[in-house]
């Protein structure tokens, strides 16, 4: 199959990649670049573990053709924060016991970020948080502590509670 060049910005870094036209963004992230923080499971946009941000909005990278992100900006979990500088969502997920096996967590955190960024400065209700996260399956936690974490991060991001 004929390959083509893809130009894409991932976590602020420009990449020029040789891809096949049928490859998904997930395949490129994991297979070409070796960024494994974006997880792989159903490949049918049913489970949400592959969620990344495309220009700040949550998308399922498993059904997005890589060619569709030409010239655009992608954020993955690796771009959100690092161990020394955790994003408030990452810190809140740890503090509230929202992480168990952790496989859905990158997708869950990025879905939450997309949602909170759409509603800046406003404290969402638990029901709104649940609706925002309903596209990502978690089999470990029962979601309650994830909702706690997102609610706490929302407060912190709105400046109502200082980042420790």
């Amino acid at each position, binding site marked *: 199959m004929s390959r083509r060049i893809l130009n894409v910005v991932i976590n602020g870094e420009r990449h020029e990649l040789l891809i096949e036209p049928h490859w998904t963004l997930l395949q490129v992230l994991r297979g070409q670049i070796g960024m494994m923080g974006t997880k792989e*499971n159903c490949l049918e946009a049913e489970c949400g573990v592959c969620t990344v941000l495309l220009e700040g909005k949550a998308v399922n990278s498993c059904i997005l053709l890589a060619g569709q992100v030409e010239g655009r900006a992608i954020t993955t979990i690796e771009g959100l924060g690092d161990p020394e500088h955790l994003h408030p969502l990452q810190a809140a997920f740890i503090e509230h016991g929202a992480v168990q096996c952790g496989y859905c967590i990158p997708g869950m955190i990025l879905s939450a970020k997309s949602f909170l960024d759409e509603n800046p400065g406003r404290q969402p209700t638990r029901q709104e948080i649940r609706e925002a996260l309903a596209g990502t399956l978690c089999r470990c936690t029962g*979601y309650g502590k994830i909702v706690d974490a997102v609610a706490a991060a929302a407060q912190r991001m709105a400046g109502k509670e200082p980042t420790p």
Partner: protein
Amino acid sequence: MSARNFRVAGQRLPRMDGIGKVTGKHVYAADFTLAGMLFGKILRSTRAHALIRRLDTSRAAAMPGVRAVITAADIPAVRFGQAVRDTTVFALDRVLFMGHPIAAVAAVSLEIAVQALAAIDVDYEDLPAVFDMEAALKSAVLVHPEWATYKALPIIARSGNISGRARIKAGDVEAAFAGAHRVYEHRFTTALQHPGYTEPRAAVADWDANGNVTVWTGTQLPFDTQNTLAEILDLPSSRVRVIVPGIGGGFGGKLRIGVEHFAALLARKTARPVRVITTSEEELTHSYPRQATVVTLKTGVDRDGHLLARQGRIVLDCGAYAGSGPATAAIALQVLAGPYKTAALALESFAVYTNKGTSGSFRGPAGPMANFAVESQMDMIAADLGLDPLEIRLRNIVHEGDRGPSGEVLRAVSIEECLRRAAAAIGWDDRKPAPGRGKGIACGWWMTTGGSSGVYVKINPDGSATLVSGAVEIGTGAITGASQILAEELSLDLADISVTGVDTQAAPYDYGAQGSRTAFSVGNACLAAAADLRRQMFAIAAAQLDAPVEAMVLRDKHVVAGDKSISIAEVARISRLSGGGLIAHGTAISPSPAYDPGRLENHPLPAWNTPSFHAHAVDLSVDPDTGTVDIHRYVVAQDVGFAINPTYIEGQIEGGVAQGIGQALSEEIVYQDGKVMNANLTDYKMPTALDVPDIESILVECASVAGPYGAKGVGEPPCIEPPAAIANAIAAATGFWLPSLPMTAEKIARELRARRK
């Protein structure tokens, strides 16, 4: 426990692997790659039961990019399996279910591997099949006509399609029924439920120059996987090394060999590393889901609702291979007895073969199925006798020193406290009749499986400790919990403990991430290792401080003797110079309690070690038109013995209840004529964030004798009671019990409409 004034144990400390997991740096089996790796795919049967008349792989093998195609003809002729050695890697001359592996391909890309599968030619000749588990009990169609030639554990009783039959018997049920005030008979069915881990099963295998194989895999049981691989590959187990990088959930679905053997066989054939990962379709057609069951119960009571006798039977559908079915079915017998005093018991389990995918031991194997039957029937009896559902339970529950179903003496019994606290929290006494709304309660008990654990603990010259364990951190936080115990015992902080990865070549044996036992057993092994390390450190400190060992304690990272002290770091440095460093091997095993063998027949798990007790209560509404269930509140009171880390215990409870809600209301792998009709995550309905309410946890701490600081097993129990608690609440809301899981809105609406006519 408060008297012990713990600093680390019992505290809500963040899990040790949390930062790696929230930053995407934690490596899971599905993330693991090697340079030059090939991609493996499995060709699966499209027939439920058929002879393979022709199998031609030549077209596939000739395709560019294909490096190997293997079938049963290319590998050692081995049958493996836990209870019954009935399983082969590939179908031999006959496929036993739709999805049965026939061949495997390794290619330079996944796309080419998939294309190669389509180029394998298979001609089938269909055979009569048996799909219904009750029909299979007496069917002339045998899934394994050669069953009698298979090796099996001596305890397992088999015959034809029955891969295991077990019994528990006590007293004279017939006489008790004859004298009973009333006798109730009910039949319940439960459905096949997928464990639903979000990481697919994945493995990478690579052979070295000396003919040893290493497999990186997301298994719950690395040592079991090592042994099974050795059998399949016809190698001594020391030449098989299993490494668990990280695991994205398992819940019992990653106990037994999944894709590791395909990767290892393809890697051997190609002399290249090979990766195999499952698709969602493969997961829902060929994995190890919770078995479907049929449970029949006959229970006799006196005028006041006291249980006099129970006859119970569970038939459990193993699918084409026994898997963990015989043991799972037998475990159901203890659950059928329940946490109740019943003088006469006649309980019987059948694990049966059918022409469907093999099933397995999903979290609390057989627990929710048998509990659903027992606890639904308790409420039916209460309703018939005009008793409060809480009251009938309180009249029958076991107490300290009572005997369990196997004749064992029960200790640290807390079922009354669990029931009373769950009932109080849900507002049990405030049950005003409101149309379409109801509260339900259910209770149960479960084992802490023992199984041995070994750990090495090393004290480093900076005063920190390294825990080397073969136990898998499956997500529960069990290794964080065990490390909290270790830190407590060594007067360290949790941050001073590091954990090595799981590697069967380097780590001591561990029975695995199963049976609510990792924190329990590894915690006990850490206690033993810490005691040994104290002895070693005190011996060194005695010479340094010129003080007697008897006067020494560990305090704040120092060995202290009166007003003299020396840091643990200094002791470790001295040990390095003089004695090869501080290291201890701690071990733990929890034998089962004494029981009455006369009560048991062919039961592989005769009496429960350190049982836990629990009660669940729920408040819900049922939509009168659609049958949709809306859960308002859900309360769990669970006896955990000692809460090593309350945050992650709550996490176990919340996650287990969510799985139980799924089993209760929506989850079912639907088979029709041997074919799975919903092999995707849209039609297989696991609860989303919108389907699970906030779950309220009450941690009851009735200390066990055998667990670290009194802890009991925690992980499995929370998924056991939800189906029954929800069924009882639906009955309170509607006036009827649905004896069939899942209790979908469709089933409820149909019943509501039928009753309106």
